[in-house]
């Protein structure tokens, strides 16, 4: 049984035909062809598939594709013009917070969501925010540093 849904994806109206049991992650990767959002565990444990829906970060593997109907969805591909994501991008590179890179899209989305709600997080707040995002390479230290640094960069940018 297929259904057609319509939603805003990275600022652009999209339509997609989806199965009732399809996850938003499968729709994004296999139906629409945006593969920046990663499949890690498929059960909400790893955060590699994190997307933002109506302003809140969620695991796209646990979201029914049907439930995207009428909503506003942002994936890592949609962060290119986002000032917070740009600050995070620079800080991730500067701090060496990327090794294999598989967790990075989820980390970027979740950290962007954190900075949108808590513009100047300390290390504890950054750790708490990414508690649902697993990284098997860098061991979090550099990722946490990068998130804190991006917050500081944005704050100093705001001040000038």
């Amino acid at each position, binding site marked *: 049984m297929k259904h057609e849904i319509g939603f805003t994806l990275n600022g652009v109206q999209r339509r997609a035909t989806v199965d009732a049991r399809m996850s938003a992650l499968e729709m994004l990767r296999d139906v629409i062809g945006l593969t920046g959002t990663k499949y890690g565990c498929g059960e909400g444990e790893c955060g590699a598939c994190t997307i933002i829906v109506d302003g809140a*970060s969620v695991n796209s593997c*646990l*979201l029914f594709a049907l*439930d995207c109907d*009428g909503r506003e969805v942002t994936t890592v591909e949609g962060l290119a013009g986002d000032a917070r994501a740009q600050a995070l991008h620079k800080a991730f590179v500067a701090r060496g917070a990327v090794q294999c890179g598989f967790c990075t899209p989820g980390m970027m989305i*979740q950290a962007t969501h954190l900075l949108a709600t*808590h513009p100047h997080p300390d290390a504890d*707040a950054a750790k708490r925010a990414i508690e649902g995002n697993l990284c098997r390479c860098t061991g979090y230290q550099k990722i946490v540093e990068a998130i804190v640094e991006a917050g500081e960069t944005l704050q100093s940018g705001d001040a000038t």
Partner: protein
Amino acid sequence: MSGSDAFERYLAPASLAQALAALAGEGGATVLAGGTDLMPQTRAGRVRPARTLLNIRRVSGLDGVEVEGGLLRIGTLATVATLLTHALVREHAPLLTQAADHFASDQIRNAATIGGNICNASPAGDLLTALLALDAEVELAWLAVDGAVRTRVHPIDDFFTGPGRTRREANELLTAVRVPLALREQQVRFYKTGTRPALDISTISIAFAARLDGGGRLHGVRLALGAVAPTPLRARRTEAMLEGLALDAALAARAADCAAGEAAPIDDVRATAWYRKELLHNMTLRMLDDVAETAGPPQGRKLPLWGTARSAKGGPHEA
């Protein structure tokens, strides 16, 4: 009845009456709210799909949090993130805020709903012990034959009948949860143990609520235990043992023994039954020691917005 392993139709109605009609319709309906449990359960074949997949997220008026007639009324679609951050929840049901602070991850808290957590009826559901300790009630709605929406209220204490099973009838929708407003002298505690603070399913959880009088005596004691029986349960013998008394070391020790005796845990991948009883004994003791030491109001300890009060290490931690 649907013999298929797939949903035959999908509905996302805007009104409660339409949703209830779908539940009462031929072949029934599987209710979708946040989806964080339903998606993996459907994938694993643990939920047999009804004929209709019923998304209730478009039904208006089901996500509000309000104070009404001496009760905090939380709509079924309120997310766990809402419980964690909403000022009315923090003021009137701080135990729910504490439980939400131990719940999964930000991504899951942003999607998972209080109604879903209740209807999923996991013995380890993090909100369920808190709701038991708060004497919560659930509101259930159904469509009468005359087409009118009827509601009934059921105590949560009697709502869970087994793992994944509740007293909700197939034609009913859980629409809201009601919690009596916390009194100033109420002490509440939520303890959860797991291998790490985030995302782990509870090995055990404990929720406690009691009023503390000027003499340090406990009144209206509620102690609820999670992940130690087929349903979350009230430790009634322990509650009775503590009622009306001031805590001292001997009483706390007896109560911890009693609580461990009231549990009926199983061996599973997360812990053995023996270990769960040990945990329950020791965590109850620690929790009661903490209650005895804290004579101040429960609001005295502030939870950070995204919580940093939880232990960064695995094992026992409190909000």
